[in-house]
């Protein structure tokens, strides 16, 4: 999925803060891009706007043929559900659901396949992240690394074209972080998913095909490795 960003700005009126300032950027299909920068530089805001969770103040974003700002709320929801997977720093698994239920949830929300198909795909995804044996565990019974693997499985289960990951290793120790990142990259490659990852970590960024550096809502540099 090709993504094109033109003159994107985001201003938080209540705080008089310009989180993104005239940003221009594009992502190719199957590309793995790391966005780096200090806290408050606008990484998460950019990810949220790309994912259609937040709206820009000005500028345009094209995801494939679609311009996000022209889409209705319902269309955005549908697009997000079918085409975008999320991975968060703090995993954000639903504590009230089991591992399996967390992974199956996007498929259930999309309501595009039957129960048997959902189960098959969710379990397959859990096999891929080596957590099938713990499918009936609750998130609170898992380690941090395991939780993030569940989050990866959840993000990929409906085979989205774009994966958005916000500091996916930020809450993990080095060893777990490396394992999770390796798994993430492998699965993205296998599925030809476009992946955009915000990170503070140079080690994590080194796994990406391209590194975009940001500061004060602007792009400082975009370098292909």
């Amino acid at each position: 999925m090709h993504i094109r960003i033109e003159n994107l700005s985001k201003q938080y009126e209540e705080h008089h803060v310009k989180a993104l300032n005239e940003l221009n950027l594009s992502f190719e299909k199957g590309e793995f891009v790391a966005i780096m920068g200090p806290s408050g530089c606008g990484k998460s805001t950019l990810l949220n706007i790309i994912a259609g969770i937040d709206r820009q103040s000005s500028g345009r974003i094209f995801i494939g043929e679609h311009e996000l700002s022209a889409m209705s709320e319902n269309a955005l929801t549908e697009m997000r559900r079918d085409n975008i997977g999320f991975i968060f720093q703090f995993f954000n698994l639903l504590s009230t659901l089991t591992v399996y239920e967390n992974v199956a949830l996007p498929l259930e929300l999309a309501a595009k396949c039957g129960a048997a198909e959902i189960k098959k795909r969710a379990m397959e995804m859990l096999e891929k992240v080596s957590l099938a044996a713990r499918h009936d565990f609750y998130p609170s019974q898992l380690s941090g690394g395991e939780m993030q693997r569940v989050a990866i499985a959840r993000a990929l289960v409906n085979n989205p074209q774009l994966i958005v990951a916000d500091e996916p290793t930020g809450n993990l120790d080095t060893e777990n972080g490396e394992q999770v990142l390796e798994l993430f990259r492998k699965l993205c490659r296998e599925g030809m998913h476009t992946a955009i990852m915000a990170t503070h970590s140079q080690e994590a960024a080194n796994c990406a095909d391209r590194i975009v550096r940001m500061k004060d809502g602007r792009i400082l540099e975009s370098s292909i490795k």
Partner: protein
Amino acid sequence: MSRVFFILLHRFILRELLKNRVRSLLTVLGIALGVAVMLAINLANTTALNKFQESLDLISGKTTLSLKARTDADFDQAALARMSMLWEQGIKFTPVIEQLAVSAAAPHEVIQVLGLDMLADRDFRSQSLSSAKSSDYSGFDIFRLRHAYVGSSLASKYGLKSGDSFELLINDRQEKIIVQAVLADEGVGRVFSGNVIVMDIGCAQELFSMKERISRVDMICPEEKIAYISSALEKVLPSGLVVERPSRRGAQVEKMLRSFQYNLTALSLIALLVGMFLIYNTMSIGIIRRRWQIGTLRALGVSGPMIFRLFCCEALILGSCGAALGVLTGWGFARYALVAVSRTVQSHYADLPPSELVWQPQIFVLAFGLGLFLTVLAAMGPAQEAVAIPPAEAARRASYEMKILGLAPRLALLGLLLLFLSVLAAFQPAIAGFPFFGYAAAALAVFGTAALTPICLDSSLKALARFLAGFLGMEARLAALSLHGALGRTSVTVASLMVGISMMVSLAVMIGSFRHTVITWVGQTLKADLWLEPASRAASRRAGNLSYELVERIRQIKEIAAVDAFIEFPIEYENEPCNLGAGELDVMEKFGNLMFVNGEQSSKVLSRIRGKDSVIISESFALKHHKRSGDTLFLDSLSGKFPVKVEGIYYDYASDTGFIVLPRESFLKHFEERPATTLAIFLKSGVSAEAVRQSIFAAMPANGRLNIRTNKELKEEVLRVFDNTFSITYALHAISIVVAILGVMNALFALTMESRKDLGIIKYLGASELQMKKLVLIQAGILGTLGNAGGLLVGSVLSLLLIHVINKQSFGWTIQLDLPFDFLLESFALIFFCSLLAGVIPARLAAKTPAPEVVRSE
């Protein structure tokens, strides 16, 4: 209190309360309703009783001893001659006539009529006239027949002034009196709240057809001579007369009202108890939500006791606002409650003077204090839970829910233990006529089932998730699983709702069963075609009787097959008030059908007592005095005590003080003849009741005033009185529903606010607004359904306790259990609908969840 405490109070508690304004407001409203109801009932109860006591004190004046008939009847004034020894002792005494009349003009006010010795009475009671007198006023005119002073309240209600005539219903006729002057609003003028007529005793005897008879003799006796005089008088006077202190009369009425008032107070506490659960709910959810904040504070060095004090302060703030609002609105509720309480007391116990609410600061303080105390008490548990949060645990959001899941089996064991204790308490007898153990059993049942809630929800929510997903989709499964995941919060919410609904169910079942029992009883017992009573009794159950001549004239009407002239008057048995009745039991045997507790046929029992010194007693009398068939009672007559054998115990729902019914011939053997109070008339077959009613009206003298009801009209009247009696219970019932609904709304707001992060994640995962709304509404529906189900279960247990323990021990009535399905279904539908309605705003909030913000902020 340290400065740190106030800083934390401001930043940690006050800000939180303001931030969650809707929830704070709902909680405050819940407490306010509870306090208002409790205040209203107490104000009404004490106002009614105080007014009654005040009236008795004013009637007594300086009297220190009174001579009266043991049977509460009037007696021959010849007794005065035997009291001449009092002169030698320097003790003043004066005869008094005390009767009730009813104003002939609407609104048919009950009026206390005092017949006094107008020359001697000034030593006993203060009596002064208002300044407005007619120009030809003469003090001696008060001795003229039918001339009287009227109380100022009565005068102003009916626009009376000196020289006016005023029509009264006295017994079965209408009589006219002339207003001699209006009494000043003091002393005797304030008796019965000014609804009083004072006349010379001779005039009163003439007016009430009480020739040479008096109600009592008042005496002013120095304290040190009371014992001596009492025993000296009892030696020279007939044994049917008794000397007693005037205060005894008030004490007897208090005894009579005790069960009614205690139970009403207990019922009024229900709303407050439901309010307590609301507070528990609010505090628990608030503390669960702020675990990480508490943990952080603990990590920063805030001590456990300070955390405890902070949360107690939160409860104190909510409690103060709620209790203050409650006492402000309680005054309004009290006006309604006073009308309802007075109406019930008037119908069943004693004639009450009309009362305006009296400002009683101590009750306001009590209501405010109790509201506050119960609020803080309800908050203690959650506050203790807050103290127990270790700093490290605060980082794990799910830890509390895991803890509750782990605690569920232990809580269930505790619940079973409480239920076992509840069963034990249910089988304990009443203490001093009050069912303390019955109420304890009810409280234990409520707390027991509340403790069982987590374990029940643990399995039922999982099952519901599977079941609902089948036809409501994945949102239903997610809703049920979210509730299961937040088991602690869900348990508290469902338990609060369950308690509110259970109170509603138990009251509905009790009232419905009672009503059904009364309908059955009335249908089987009231067999007469016509019922006749003096018109004055329509306003007061204790005012009036039927003249012998009229009864005889009615007996002569050829369409009438038989007449049971029933005499009814209050007596005391073993120092407890009750009623003595005498009827023509041969008529009852042939035409009537009393229902006996042992199932024996009415005619069989009545045939056994005909012509003998035997009685039948009502169930409430039997229970109160622990009497069974075959036992012997000793009754007071004018000539002393006489024994009677109990031949049967019959169901009766007319009076909770109880009835002893003698055959007429036995009554005449031991008591002076007295006129009948009601007539049960049985018609020959094929005769029209309406035609006979007209014949009776035609047989009446011109000033005759009677109430004649057909069988159908009487049955309707019984149900009207029943519904009036329970009007206040219906109101309490409605309030407990409102408090329960406030609980649902409160809980849903809390749960939605609590679930904001989860909702945000679900939004990230692609849930549409519609799906999120559906999810929250299904959660609301599940909570409503579970609350309803639990409420029905606990309510059924409570209704059994109310019917078979609390009501039976308080009033002595057997009530047949009858479930009012229609009402219960309507209520459940209403609560379910309100639950869904309560979910609308949270659902909209959920749909608009700003996903990045909430996910980031958490």
